[in-house]
Protein backbone atom coordinates (compact mmCIF):
# COMPACT_ATOMS: atom_id res chain seq x y z
CA UNK A 1 0.00 0.00 0.00
CA UNK A 2 1.53 3.36 -1.05
CA UNK A 3 1.47 6.23 1.38
CA UNK A 4 -1.55 8.51 1.18
CA UNK A 5 0.66 11.49 0.30
CA UNK A 6 1.88 9.63 -2.81
CA UNK A 7 -1.49 8.58 -4.19
CA UNK A 8 -2.85 10.78 -6.97
CA UNK A 9 -6.48 10.74 -8.14
CA UNK A 10 -6.86 10.50 -11.92
CA UNK A 11 -8.71 13.15 -13.92
CA UNK A 12 -12.19 11.64 -13.63
CA UNK A 13 -11.88 10.94 -9.91
CA UNK A 14 -10.49 14.41 -9.34
CA UNK A 15 -13.44 16.01 -11.12
CA UNK A 16 -15.88 13.88 -9.11
CA UNK A 17 -14.14 14.74 -5.86
CA UNK A 18 -14.22 18.41 -6.73
CA UNK A 19 -18.02 18.29 -7.21
CA UNK A 20 -18.61 16.17 -4.11
CA UNK A 21 -18.76 18.91 -1.42
CA UNK A 22 -20.97 21.10 -3.59
CA UNK A 23 -23.41 18.26 -4.25
CA UNK A 24 -23.36 17.30 -0.55
CA UNK A 25 -24.32 20.85 0.49
CA UNK A 26 -27.14 20.99 -2.05
CA UNK A 27 -28.51 17.61 -0.96
CA UNK A 28 -28.30 18.59 2.71
CA UNK A 29 -30.18 21.79 1.89
CA UNK A 30 -32.88 19.89 -0.01
CA UNK A 31 -33.43 17.41 2.82
CA UNK A 32 -33.60 20.14 5.46
CA UNK A 33 -35.85 22.33 3.33
CA UNK A 34 -38.24 19.42 2.61
CA UNK A 35 -38.39 18.53 6.29
CA UNK A 36 -39.28 22.06 7.39
CA UNK A 37 -41.77 22.64 4.58
CA UNK A 38 -43.60 19.39 5.35
CA UNK A 39 -44.19 20.65 8.89
CA UNK A 40 -45.05 24.22 7.89
CA UNK A 41 -45.68 24.95 4.17
CA UNK A 42 -45.28 28.71 4.84
CA UNK A 43 -41.83 28.37 6.37
CA UNK A 44 -39.53 31.10 5.00
CA UNK A 45 -36.18 29.94 6.34
CA UNK A 46 -35.31 27.26 3.80
CA UNK A 47 -37.48 27.88 0.72
CA UNK A 48 -37.93 25.11 -1.86
CA UNK A 49 -36.55 25.25 -5.42
CA UNK A 50 -39.79 26.48 -6.95
CA UNK A 51 -39.97 29.42 -4.53
CA UNK A 52 -36.37 30.30 -5.23
CA UNK A 53 -36.91 30.00 -8.99
CA UNK A 54 -39.89 32.33 -8.76
CA UNK A 55 -37.85 34.86 -6.79
CA UNK A 56 -35.04 34.71 -9.35
CA UNK A 57 -37.49 35.31 -12.15
CA UNK A 58 -39.00 38.25 -10.28
CA UNK A 59 -35.68 39.89 -9.50
CA UNK A 60 -33.75 39.15 -12.68
CA UNK A 61 -36.12 38.76 -15.59
CA UNK A 62 -39.21 40.86 -14.84
CA UNK A 63 -39.19 44.65 -14.54
CA UNK A 64 -39.91 45.96 -11.06
CA UNK A 65 -43.54 47.07 -10.77
CA UNK A 66 -42.71 50.29 -8.99
CA UNK A 67 -39.64 51.50 -10.89
CA UNK A 68 -39.85 49.49 -14.09
CA UNK A 69 -36.17 48.47 -13.93
CA UNK A 70 -34.63 45.03 -13.62
CA UNK A 71 -33.54 44.94 -9.99
CA UNK A 72 -30.77 42.36 -10.20
CA UNK A 73 -29.21 44.11 -13.19
CA UNK A 74 -29.47 47.51 -11.54
CA UNK A 75 -28.03 46.23 -8.25
CA UNK A 76 -25.20 44.49 -10.07
CA UNK A 77 -24.27 47.59 -12.05
CA UNK A 78 -24.30 49.78 -8.94
CA UNK A 79 -22.21 47.40 -6.89
CA UNK A 80 -19.70 46.54 -9.60
CA UNK A 81 -19.08 50.18 -10.51
CA UNK A 82 -18.46 51.08 -6.84
CA UNK A 83 -16.22 48.07 -6.42
CA UNK A 84 -14.43 48.70 -9.71
CA UNK A 85 -13.68 52.36 -9.03
CA UNK A 86 -12.64 51.67 -5.43
CA UNK A 87 -10.32 48.81 -6.40
CA UNK A 88 -8.87 50.77 -9.34
CA UNK A 89 -8.03 53.74 -7.12
CA UNK A 90 -6.51 51.46 -4.46
CA UNK A 91 -4.47 49.68 -7.16
CA UNK A 92 -3.10 52.93 -8.51
CA UNK A 93 -2.20 54.29 -5.07
CA UNK A 94 -0.89 50.89 -3.96
CA UNK A 95 1.22 50.52 -7.09
CA UNK A 96 2.86 53.93 -6.78
CA UNK A 97 3.42 53.94 -3.03
CA UNK A 98 4.34 50.27 -2.87
CA UNK A 99 7.06 50.55 -5.51
CA UNK A 100 8.50 53.80 -4.16
CA UNK A 101 8.45 52.45 -0.62
CA UNK A 102 10.14 49.24 -1.67
CA UNK A 103 12.82 50.90 -3.79
CA UNK A 104 13.73 54.32 -2.42
CA UNK A 105 15.22 54.46 1.09
CA UNK A 106 14.16 58.08 1.73
CA UNK A 107 10.60 57.30 0.71
CA UNK A 108 10.58 54.17 2.86
CA UNK A 109 11.92 56.07 5.85
CA UNK A 110 9.11 58.59 5.46
CA UNK A 111 6.12 56.34 4.79
CA UNK A 112 6.86 52.83 6.06
CA UNK A 113 5.72 53.37 9.64
CA UNK A 114 2.85 55.55 8.48
CA UNK A 115 1.33 52.98 6.12
CA UNK A 116 1.98 50.33 8.77
CA UNK A 117 -0.14 52.26 11.27
CA UNK A 118 -2.79 53.10 8.66
CA UNK A 119 -3.19 49.43 7.83
CA UNK A 120 -4.01 48.72 11.49
CA UNK A 121 -7.06 51.02 11.50
CA UNK A 122 -10.17 48.86 11.04
CA UNK A 123 -11.75 50.39 7.92
CA UNK A 124 -15.31 49.79 9.13
CA UNK A 125 -14.59 51.91 12.19
CA UNK A 126 -13.82 54.77 9.80
CA UNK A 127 -17.05 54.30 7.85
CA UNK A 128 -19.08 56.75 9.99
CA UNK A 129 -16.38 59.37 9.44
CA UNK A 130 -16.53 58.77 5.68
CA UNK A 131 -20.32 59.16 5.71
CA UNK A 132 -19.96 62.41 7.66
CA UNK A 133 -17.30 63.81 5.34
CA UNK A 134 -18.47 62.53 1.96
CA UNK A 135 -22.20 62.25 2.61
CA UNK A 136 -24.32 59.19 2.02
CA UNK A 137 -23.77 59.14 -1.76
CA UNK A 138 -21.50 57.05 -3.94
CA UNK A 139 -18.26 58.69 -2.90
CA UNK A 140 -18.21 57.41 0.68
CA UNK A 141 -18.68 53.81 -0.47
CA UNK A 142 -15.97 54.04 -3.10
CA UNK A 143 -13.63 55.65 -0.61
CA UNK A 144 -14.31 52.91 1.94
CA UNK A 145 -13.37 50.22 -0.58
CA UNK A 146 -10.23 52.10 -1.61
CA UNK A 147 -9.16 52.99 1.92
CA UNK A 148 -9.94 49.49 3.10
CA UNK A 149 -7.62 47.65 0.72
CA UNK A 150 -4.96 50.22 -0.28
CA UNK A 151 -2.74 49.72 2.81
CA UNK A 152 -2.58 45.99 2.18
CA UNK A 153 -1.69 46.49 -1.48
CA UNK A 154 0.97 49.06 -0.61
CA UNK A 155 2.65 46.85 1.97
CA UNK A 156 2.42 43.72 -0.16
CA UNK A 157 3.97 45.47 -3.16
CA UNK A 158 6.66 47.16 -1.08
CA UNK A 159 7.75 43.75 0.18
CA UNK A 160 7.73 42.32 -3.36
CA UNK A 161 9.79 45.25 -4.60
CA UNK A 162 12.34 44.71 -1.84
CA UNK A 163 12.57 41.08 -2.96
CA UNK A 164 13.90 42.05 -6.39
CA UNK A 165 17.46 40.68 -6.29
CA UNK A 166 19.95 43.40 -5.35
CA UNK A 167 22.07 42.15 -8.25
CA UNK A 168 19.45 43.30 -10.75
CA UNK A 169 19.41 46.82 -9.34
CA UNK A 170 23.23 46.96 -9.35
CA UNK A 171 23.33 45.58 -12.87
CA UNK A 172 20.92 48.24 -14.11
CA UNK A 173 23.13 50.95 -12.63
CA UNK A 174 26.19 49.54 -14.36
CA UNK A 175 24.19 49.81 -17.58
CA UNK A 176 23.81 53.51 -16.86
CA UNK A 177 20.23 53.60 -15.59
CA UNK A 178 18.94 56.49 -13.48
CA UNK A 179 16.50 55.91 -10.61
CA UNK A 180 13.60 56.84 -12.88
CA UNK A 181 14.81 54.49 -15.63
CA UNK A 182 15.19 51.67 -13.13
CA UNK A 183 11.61 52.20 -11.98
CA UNK A 184 10.32 52.39 -15.53
CA UNK A 185 12.16 49.48 -17.15
CA UNK A 186 13.13 47.14 -14.31
CA UNK A 187 10.78 47.54 -11.36
CA UNK A 188 7.37 48.41 -12.79
CA UNK A 189 7.31 45.64 -15.44
CA UNK A 190 8.30 43.03 -12.86
CA UNK A 191 5.91 44.36 -10.23
CA UNK A 192 2.75 44.62 -12.38
CA UNK A 193 1.99 40.89 -12.17
CA UNK A 194 2.71 41.00 -8.41
CA UNK A 195 0.34 43.93 -8.13
CA UNK A 196 -2.37 41.83 -9.75
CA UNK A 197 -1.70 39.11 -7.18
CA UNK A 198 -2.11 41.67 -4.41
CA UNK A 199 -5.37 42.94 -5.91
CA UNK A 200 -6.69 39.39 -6.22
CA UNK A 201 -5.92 38.72 -2.57
CA UNK A 202 -7.66 41.90 -1.46
CA UNK A 203 -10.83 41.42 -3.55
CA UNK A 204 -12.51 39.49 -0.73
CA UNK A 205 -11.97 42.40 1.65
CA UNK A 206 -13.15 44.83 -1.03
CA UNK A 207 -16.48 42.99 -1.31
CA UNK A 208 -16.80 42.98 2.47
CA UNK A 209 -16.39 46.74 2.69
CA UNK A 210 -18.70 47.34 -0.26
CA UNK A 211 -21.52 45.26 1.15
CA UNK A 212 -21.11 46.79 4.61
CA UNK A 213 -21.33 50.31 3.17
CA UNK A 214 -24.33 49.40 1.02
CA UNK A 215 -26.10 47.76 3.95
CA UNK A 216 -25.82 50.92 6.03
CA UNK A 217 -26.70 53.68 3.59
CA UNK A 218 -27.74 53.07 0.02
CA UNK A 219 -30.72 52.79 -2.28
CA UNK A 220 -29.31 50.21 -4.68
CA UNK A 221 -26.64 47.55 -4.84
CA UNK A 222 -26.35 43.87 -4.07
CA UNK A 223 -25.54 44.49 -0.39
CA UNK A 224 -28.41 46.94 -0.07
CA UNK A 225 -30.87 44.40 -1.50
CA UNK A 226 -29.77 41.58 0.77
CA UNK A 227 -30.12 43.68 3.89
CA UNK A 228 -33.46 45.08 2.70
CA UNK A 229 -34.80 41.57 2.12
CA UNK A 230 -33.64 40.50 5.57
CA UNK A 231 -36.49 42.57 7.04
CA UNK A 232 -38.98 40.36 5.24
CA UNK A 233 -37.04 37.16 5.96
CA UNK A 234 -37.00 36.75 2.16
CA UNK A 235 -34.52 33.91 2.01
CA UNK A 236 -35.75 33.09 -1.50
CA UNK A 237 -34.14 36.35 -2.67
CA UNK A 238 -31.18 36.45 -0.31
CA UNK A 239 -29.84 33.00 -1.21
CA UNK A 240 -29.69 33.60 -4.99
CA UNK A 241 -28.14 37.03 -4.35
CA UNK A 242 -25.41 35.47 -2.24
CA UNK A 243 -24.80 32.88 -4.94
CA UNK A 244 -24.68 35.64 -7.57
CA UNK A 245 -22.17 37.71 -5.57
CA UNK A 246 -20.03 34.61 -5.14
CA UNK A 247 -20.14 33.96 -8.87
CA UNK A 248 -19.19 37.58 -9.63
CA UNK A 249 -16.27 37.45 -7.20
CA UNK A 250 -15.08 34.14 -8.61
CA UNK A 251 -15.29 35.43 -12.18
CA UNK A 252 -13.38 38.60 -11.33
CA UNK A 253 -10.63 36.56 -9.74
CA UNK A 254 -10.46 34.24 -12.74
CA UNK A 255 -10.39 37.16 -15.16
CA UNK A 256 -7.48 38.77 -13.33
CA UNK A 257 -5.59 35.50 -13.33
CA UNK A 258 -6.11 34.97 -17.05
CA UNK A 259 -5.10 38.55 -17.78
CA UNK A 260 -1.91 38.04 -15.77
CA UNK A 261 -1.07 34.86 -17.71
CA UNK A 262 -1.61 36.47 -21.07
CA UNK A 263 -0.03 39.86 -20.35
CA UNK A 264 3.05 38.62 -18.49
CA UNK A 265 4.12 35.58 -20.41
CA UNK A 266 7.75 35.93 -19.33
CA UNK A 267 6.74 34.75 -15.86
CA UNK A 268 5.40 31.47 -17.14
CA UNK A 269 7.79 30.67 -19.98
CA UNK A 270 10.25 27.88 -19.59
CA UNK A 271 9.50 27.08 -15.97
Amino acid at each position, binding site marked *: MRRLINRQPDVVVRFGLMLLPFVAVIIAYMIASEARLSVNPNDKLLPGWSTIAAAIERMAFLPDQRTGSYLLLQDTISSLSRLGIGVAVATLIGGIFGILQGLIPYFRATFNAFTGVLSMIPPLAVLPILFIIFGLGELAKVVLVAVGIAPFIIRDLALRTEEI*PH*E*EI*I*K*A*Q*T*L*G*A*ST*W*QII*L*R*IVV*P*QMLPRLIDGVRLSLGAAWLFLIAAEAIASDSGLGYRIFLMRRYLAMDVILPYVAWITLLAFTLDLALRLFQRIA*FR*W*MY*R*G*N
Partner: protein
Amino acid sequence: MTRVTVENVWKVYGDQTVLENINLEIEPGSFIALVGPSGCGKSTFLRMMLGDEAPSRGRILLDGEELDAEPSPDRGVVFQKYSVFPHLTALQNVMLGLEFVASPVMARLFGSRKRAAKAEALDMLTCVGLGHAVHKYPSELSGGMQQRLAIAQALIKKPKILLLDEPFGALDPGIRAEVHEILLRLWRDEGMTVFMVTHDLSEAFKLGTRVIAFDRVRTRPEEMKAYGATVTFDLKVDGKSVPPRPEIRDVLAVAAQ
Protein backbone atom coordinates in the same frame (compact mmCIF):
# COMPACT_ATOMS: atom_id res chain seq x y z
CA MET B 1 42.89 51.54 -20.85
CA THR B 2 42.47 52.01 -17.15
CA ARG B 3 44.95 51.66 -14.32
CA VAL B 4 43.48 50.49 -11.05
CA THR B 5 45.17 51.36 -7.77
CA VAL B 6 44.00 49.83 -4.52
CA GLU B 7 45.49 51.74 -1.59
CA ASN B 8 45.51 50.26 1.86
CA VAL B 9 41.89 49.09 1.69
CA TRP B 10 40.13 47.61 4.74
CA LYS B 11 36.61 46.34 5.03
CA VAL B 12 34.99 45.89 8.43
CA TYR B 13 31.43 44.69 9.10
CA GLY B 14 30.50 45.52 12.69
CA ASP B 15 33.36 44.07 14.72
CA GLN B 16 34.29 41.57 11.99
CA THR B 17 37.27 42.56 9.89
CA VAL B 18 36.84 40.95 6.48
CA LEU B 19 39.66 42.45 4.44
CA GLU B 20 42.72 44.22 5.70
CA ASN B 21 45.41 46.24 4.14
CA ILE B 22 44.86 45.38 0.48
CA ASN B 23 47.36 47.12 -1.79
CA LEU B 24 47.34 46.47 -5.52
CA GLU B 25 48.63 48.21 -8.60
CA ILE B 26 46.83 46.82 -11.63
CA GLU B 27 48.30 47.41 -15.08
CA PRO B 28 45.85 48.59 -17.73
CA GLY B 29 44.39 45.69 -19.69
CA SER B 30 45.19 43.07 -17.09
CA PHE B 31 43.06 39.99 -16.61
CA ILE B 32 43.06 39.46 -12.85
CA ALA B 33 41.98 36.09 -11.51
CA LEU B 34 41.03 36.33 -7.85
CA VAL B 35 41.12 33.17 -5.76
CA GLY B 36 40.81 32.38 -2.07
CA PRO B 37 38.85 30.27 0.38
CA SER B 38 35.10 30.72 0.74
CA GLY B 39 34.15 33.67 2.92
CA CYS B 40 37.51 35.43 2.67
CA GLY B 41 36.03 38.53 1.06
CA LYS B 42 36.41 38.14 -2.70
CA SER B 43 32.83 39.20 -3.39
CA THR B 44 33.21 41.99 -0.87
CA PHE B 45 36.23 43.24 -2.80
CA LEU B 46 34.28 43.18 -6.07
CA ARG B 47 31.39 45.05 -4.44
CA MET B 48 33.84 47.77 -3.40
CA MET B 49 35.19 47.90 -6.95
CA LEU B 50 31.61 48.29 -8.14
CA GLY B 51 30.87 51.11 -5.72
CA ASP B 52 28.08 49.04 -4.14
CA GLU B 53 30.00 49.22 -0.84
CA ALA B 54 32.57 51.70 0.40
CA PRO B 55 35.91 50.61 1.89
CA SER B 56 36.07 51.12 5.66
CA ARG B 57 39.54 52.52 5.21
CA GLY B 58 41.76 53.26 2.23
CA ARG B 59 40.68 54.05 -1.31
CA ILE B 60 40.42 52.67 -4.81
CA LEU B 61 41.59 54.79 -7.74
CA LEU B 62 40.85 54.50 -11.45
CA ASP B 63 43.53 56.31 -13.44
CA GLY B 64 44.37 58.29 -10.31
CA GLU B 65 40.76 59.35 -9.62
CA GLU B 66 38.83 57.97 -6.67
CA LEU B 67 36.04 55.82 -8.08
CA ASP B 68 32.35 56.77 -7.97
CA ALA B 69 30.63 55.82 -4.74
CA GLU B 70 27.86 54.16 -6.72
CA PRO B 71 27.79 51.72 -9.64
CA SER B 72 28.32 53.37 -13.02
CA PRO B 73 28.70 52.29 -16.65
CA ASP B 74 32.50 52.37 -16.59
CA ARG B 75 32.42 49.20 -14.47
CA GLY B 76 30.42 46.28 -15.89
CA VAL B 77 29.52 43.23 -13.85
CA VAL B 78 28.43 39.63 -14.26
CA PHE B 79 27.22 37.86 -11.12
CA GLN B 80 26.86 34.15 -10.62
CA LYS B 81 23.06 34.58 -10.59
CA TYR B 82 20.43 37.25 -11.29
CA SER B 83 22.63 39.05 -13.79
CA VAL B 84 20.00 39.32 -16.50
CA PHE B 85 16.46 40.65 -16.31
CA PRO B 86 13.85 37.89 -16.36
CA HIS B 87 11.12 40.02 -17.94
CA LEU B 88 13.13 40.92 -21.03
CA THR B 89 14.14 38.77 -23.98
CA ALA B 90 17.82 38.24 -24.73
CA LEU B 91 17.72 41.01 -27.32
CA GLN B 92 15.91 43.42 -25.00
CA ASN B 93 18.38 42.62 -22.22
CA VAL B 94 21.29 43.64 -24.43
CA MET B 95 19.56 46.68 -25.93
CA LEU B 96 18.76 48.01 -22.45
CA GLY B 97 22.21 49.56 -21.93
CA LEU B 98 21.90 51.46 -25.20
CA GLU B 99 18.39 52.65 -24.43
CA PHE B 100 19.27 53.98 -20.99
CA VAL B 101 21.92 56.33 -22.33
CA ALA B 102 20.05 57.48 -25.43
CA SER B 103 16.60 58.01 -23.91
CA PRO B 104 16.66 59.50 -20.41
CA VAL B 105 12.90 59.88 -19.96
CA MET B 106 11.29 56.98 -21.81
CA ALA B 107 14.28 54.63 -21.56
CA ARG B 108 13.11 53.29 -24.91
CA LEU B 109 14.16 53.96 -28.48
CA PHE B 110 11.97 54.25 -31.55
CA GLY B 111 12.35 54.29 -35.31
CA SER B 112 15.82 54.45 -36.81
CA ARG B 113 17.56 54.81 -33.47
CA LYS B 114 15.87 51.64 -32.30
CA ARG B 115 16.95 49.83 -35.45
CA ALA B 116 20.55 50.94 -34.92
CA ALA B 117 20.54 49.80 -31.29
CA LYS B 118 18.98 46.52 -32.32
CA ALA B 119 21.64 45.89 -34.94
CA GLU B 120 24.39 46.61 -32.43
CA ALA B 121 22.78 44.31 -29.85
CA LEU B 122 22.36 41.56 -32.44
CA ASP B 123 26.04 41.81 -33.33
CA MET B 124 26.97 41.45 -29.69
CA LEU B 125 24.62 38.47 -29.25
CA THR B 126 26.12 36.79 -32.29
CA CYS B 127 29.54 37.44 -30.82
CA VAL B 128 28.69 35.39 -27.74
CA GLY B 129 26.99 32.69 -29.80
CA LEU B 130 23.39 33.58 -29.00
CA GLY B 131 22.40 34.66 -32.49
CA HIS B 132 19.77 31.93 -32.63
CA ALA B 133 18.11 32.73 -29.29
CA VAL B 134 17.60 36.48 -29.40
CA HIS B 135 13.86 36.37 -28.73
CA LYS B 136 13.99 33.96 -25.82
CA TYR B 137 13.44 34.92 -22.22
CA PRO B 138 16.22 34.08 -19.71
CA SER B 139 14.11 31.31 -18.14
CA GLU B 140 14.15 29.61 -21.53
CA LEU B 141 17.97 29.71 -21.76
CA SER B 142 20.42 27.25 -20.22
CA GLY B 143 22.80 28.37 -17.48
CA GLY B 144 25.67 28.81 -19.91
CA MET B 145 23.53 30.78 -22.33
CA GLN B 146 22.35 33.04 -19.51
CA GLN B 147 25.93 33.80 -18.51
CA ARG B 148 26.92 34.52 -22.10
CA LEU B 149 23.89 36.82 -22.29
CA ALA B 150 25.03 38.58 -19.11
CA ILE B 151 28.47 39.09 -20.65
CA ALA B 152 26.97 40.49 -23.85
CA GLN B 153 24.73 42.78 -21.81
CA ALA B 154 27.66 44.13 -19.82
CA LEU B 155 30.01 44.51 -22.82
CA ILE B 156 27.60 46.52 -24.95
CA LYS B 157 28.45 49.44 -22.62
CA LYS B 158 32.17 48.98 -23.40
CA PRO B 159 33.12 49.22 -19.71
CA LYS B 160 36.69 50.06 -18.77
CA ILE B 161 36.56 47.39 -16.11
CA LEU B 162 34.64 44.12 -16.15
CA LEU B 163 33.93 42.46 -12.81
CA LEU B 164 33.01 38.77 -12.81
CA ASP B 165 31.96 36.99 -9.61
CA GLU B 166 32.23 33.24 -10.16
CA PRO B 167 30.50 33.66 -13.49
CA PHE B 168 31.05 30.11 -14.70
CA GLY B 169 30.73 28.16 -11.46
CA ALA B 170 27.58 26.37 -12.56
CA LEU B 171 28.71 25.44 -16.08
CA ASP B 172 29.90 22.06 -17.31
CA PRO B 173 33.50 21.85 -18.58
CA GLY B 174 32.62 21.85 -22.29
CA ILE B 175 30.46 24.94 -22.14
CA ARG B 176 32.93 26.56 -19.81
CA ALA B 177 35.79 26.21 -22.28
CA GLU B 178 33.57 27.69 -24.96
CA VAL B 179 32.66 30.70 -22.83
CA HIS B 180 36.35 31.13 -21.91
CA GLU B 181 37.23 31.52 -25.58
CA ILE B 182 34.49 34.11 -26.06
CA LEU B 183 35.56 36.04 -22.98
CA LEU B 184 39.27 36.03 -23.94
CA ARG B 185 38.45 37.24 -27.43
CA LEU B 186 36.28 40.08 -26.16
CA TRP B 187 38.82 41.05 -23.54
CA ARG B 188 41.58 41.30 -26.17
CA ASP B 189 39.34 43.22 -28.58
CA GLU B 190 38.00 45.72 -26.07
CA GLY B 191 41.20 46.34 -24.14
CA MET B 192 39.44 46.39 -20.80
CA THR B 193 40.66 45.33 -17.37
CA VAL B 194 38.98 42.19 -16.04
CA PHE B 195 38.63 41.05 -12.44
CA MET B 196 37.33 37.50 -12.19
CA VAL B 197 36.63 35.64 -8.95
CA THR B 198 36.87 31.89 -9.36
CA HIS B 199 37.27 28.78 -7.26
CA ASP B 200 38.79 26.90 -10.17
CA LEU B 201 42.58 27.21 -10.26
CA SER B 202 43.02 25.92 -13.78
CA GLU B 203 40.50 28.52 -14.90
CA ALA B 204 42.44 31.18 -13.01
CA PHE B 205 45.70 30.26 -14.73
CA LYS B 206 44.15 29.69 -18.10
CA LEU B 207 42.49 33.11 -18.27
CA GLY B 208 44.41 35.35 -15.92
CA THR B 209 47.45 37.45 -16.73
CA ARG B 210 47.85 37.73 -13.00
CA VAL B 211 46.53 35.47 -10.25
CA ILE B 212 45.89 37.04 -6.85
CA ALA B 213 44.94 35.06 -3.76
CA PHE B 214 43.21 36.46 -0.68
CA ASP B 215 43.54 34.57 2.57
CA ARG B 216 43.75 35.04 6.31
CA VAL B 217 47.24 35.01 7.70
CA ARG B 218 46.16 34.68 11.31
CA THR B 219 43.82 31.78 11.83
CA ARG B 220 43.76 31.24 15.57
CA PRO B 221 40.09 31.36 16.72
CA GLU B 222 40.61 34.35 19.01
CA GLU B 223 42.17 36.28 16.12
CA MET B 224 39.40 35.57 13.60
CA LYS B 225 37.37 38.70 14.32
CA ALA B 226 40.10 41.29 14.57
CA TYR B 227 42.11 40.22 11.53
CA GLY B 228 40.81 39.85 7.99
CA ALA B 229 42.11 38.38 4.79
CA THR B 230 44.80 40.06 2.76
CA VAL B 231 46.78 39.39 -0.40
CA THR B 232 48.78 36.23 0.22
CA PHE B 233 49.89 35.43 -3.32
CA ASP B 234 50.25 37.65 -6.31
CA LEU B 235 51.64 36.00 -9.42
CA LYS B 236 52.12 37.31 -12.91
CA VAL B 237 51.27 34.59 -15.39
CA ASP B 238 53.37 35.06 -18.46
CA GLY B 239 53.11 32.71 -21.40
CA LYS B 240 49.54 31.87 -20.69
CA SER B 241 49.63 28.30 -21.98
CA VAL B 242 52.44 27.29 -19.62
CA PRO B 243 51.07 25.67 -16.50
CA PRO B 244 52.44 27.16 -13.27
CA ARG B 245 55.18 25.40 -11.41
CA PRO B 246 53.83 22.52 -9.32
CA GLU B 247 54.91 23.96 -5.97
CA ILE B 248 53.04 27.22 -6.63
CA ARG B 249 50.04 25.26 -7.68
CA ASP B 250 50.07 23.38 -4.38
CA VAL B 251 50.28 26.53 -2.31
CA LEU B 252 47.43 28.08 -4.26
CA ALA B 253 45.34 24.95 -4.01
CA VAL B 254 45.45 25.34 -0.26
CA ALA B 255 44.41 28.98 -0.59
CA ALA B 256 41.51 28.20 -2.92
CA GLN B 257 40.56 24.90 -1.27
